[in-house]
């Protein structure tokens, strides 16, 4: 039966998750170079159109339409059979559809951080459409769908708000894509002027965190104690990770940076996502405290040592943070918090931990293989990378014919 409180909560949470996508656009846009800011933002924004369209057409049905190990069915194609009166739990099914839609939008948007500064927009457009079909809808089904392989269908791994589905899938796919694209020119010799607008980064962080309350607390699907619990673990992990990143900054360079604080907060939010409704609040402090150093040294390893050009650290933050959070969910999950999980390693049980690790492994595999398939198809249609001159000029002019702040360089 429909409950107005739960419905109100979930509808507003949906709006909060919605605002994360422009938030991500600002986060990426501010972090990149001035000549690429339109492109970096557009790469998130266009998915608000494409992702919505695909989700209504086919995505919801493939993700949540019927039982299956790997994927749903086509029963709800075009939202067929879902009316105003359809109810899921205590909320209108349409609210659940909308809530999940926002996840399907932001996941591919995260990927685009890895490809910043060099991917052709039309190739990205096609890639995102394919990736939604090949990676996201199957992942959502496998984790959350009826009879899904990683969830209630077999492995019984848990993922409260999308550690696997959103963060690992997008982060890992980003890494693969960045390797296929190759580095930006000059990446090895000199990184220069990477951040062009710190207030824009902070705006992105603020909107992301704001929306993340909807993302994590809303994943309880009801306005209850569990939602409140997830709300608190989210705040605690985000806050603690901000502090621990600031601490690393201080150790490394004697100066605490705002970029570090913002990055740490996002890492903490990613880290708590899989476990938000499964782990105790005190463990959110631990997750937050350690996710920042793990991401920090992960990024150093990937970018400085391995020389992978994960431009805006989609893998560095979302991939690594998501994997770390998923594993720690297996450590700290507690049946006293949520009966949908088994106890974690810390509470003396092995099984949930093992499930989490296997589940992460499978998520990585799906993301890698899926991305390779998608890029393979895209390449049959169009080249994926801009040429050297276009890269130099910047993707704003070369891909979109726009300049973000024309009158700042010059004249009004």
């Amino acid at each position: 039966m429909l409950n107005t409180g739960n419905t109100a909560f979930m509808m507003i949470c949906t709006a909060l998750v919605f605002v994360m996508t422009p938030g991500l656009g600002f986060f990426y846009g501010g972090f990149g170079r001035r000549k690429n800011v339109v492109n970096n933002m557009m790469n998130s924004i266009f998915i608000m159109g494409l992702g919505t369209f695909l989700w209504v057409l086919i995505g919801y049905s493939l993700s949540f339409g019927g039982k299956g190990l790997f994927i749903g069915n086509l029963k709800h194609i075009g939202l067929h059979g879902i009316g105003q009166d359809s109810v899921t739990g205590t909320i209108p099914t349409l609210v659940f559809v909308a809530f999940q839609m926002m996840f399907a939008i932001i996941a591919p948007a995260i990927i685009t951080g890895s490809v910043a500064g060099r991917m052709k927009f039309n190739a990205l457009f096609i890639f995102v459409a394919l990736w939604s079909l090949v990676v996201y809808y199957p992942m959502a089904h496998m984790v959350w769908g009826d009879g899904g392989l990683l969830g209630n269908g077999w492995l019984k791994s848990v993922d409260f708000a999308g550690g696997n589905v959103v963060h690992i899938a997008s982060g890992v796919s980003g890494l693969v894509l960045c390797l296929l694209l190759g580095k930006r020119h000059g990446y090895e010799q000199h990184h220069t002027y990477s951040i062009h607008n710190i207030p824009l980064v902070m705006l992105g962080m603020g909107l992301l965190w704001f929306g993340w309350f909807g993302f994590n607390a809303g994943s309880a699907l009801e306005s209850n104690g569990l939602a409140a619990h997830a709300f608190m673990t989210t705040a605690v992990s985000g806050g603690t990770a901000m502090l621990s990143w600031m601490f690393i900054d201080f150790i490394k360079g004697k100066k605490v940076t705002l970029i570090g604080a913002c990055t740490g907060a996002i890492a903490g939010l990613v880290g708590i996502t899989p476990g938000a409704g499964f782990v105790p609040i005190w463990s959110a402090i631990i997750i937050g405290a350690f996710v920042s150093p793990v991401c920090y040294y992960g990024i150093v390893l990937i970018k400085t040592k391995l020389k992978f050009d994960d431009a805006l650290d989609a893998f560095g933050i979302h991939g690594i943070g998501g994997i770390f959070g998923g594993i720690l969910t297996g450590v700290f999950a507690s049946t006293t918090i949520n009966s949908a999980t088994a106890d974690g390693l810390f509470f003396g049980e092995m099984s949930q931990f093992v499930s989490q690790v296997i589940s992460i492994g499978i998520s990585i595999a799906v993301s890698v293989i899926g991305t390779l398939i998608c890029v393979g198809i895209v390449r049959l249609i169009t080249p994926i990378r801009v040429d050297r001159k276009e890269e130099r000029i910047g993707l704003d002019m070369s891909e979109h014919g726009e300049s973000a702040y024309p009158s700042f360089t010059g004249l009004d």
Partner: protein
Amino acid sequence: MIIKVEAIVREEKLEDVKEALSKIEVNGITVSQVMGAGMQKGLTELVRGQEIDIPLLPKIKFEIVVSSEEWEQKTIQAIQEAAFTGEVGDGKIFSYDLRSVQRIRTQETGYDALN
């Protein structure tokens, strides 16, 4: 003899020109953003179906003060090579005579101020 070489180049050539100057060990440079027009006319953008003229395009100005005609030539040569694309809008290199130069840190003047 103190000479200033001034060059207007394409925005995207900033790093190339800087590197080329480094290579010939010209390190003292001042760079600024300018807008320019010339043979290369501005752009036209389509904004909501309207054609918008952008009459001036962003360019980079290099200013380099050197202490001899030899260095003037070397500098011009280096910029010429690094900034060249062959398409309209590559820019121009000017040079001027200076009266004097003084390094604030040491109060040295002339040749010494530049090295």
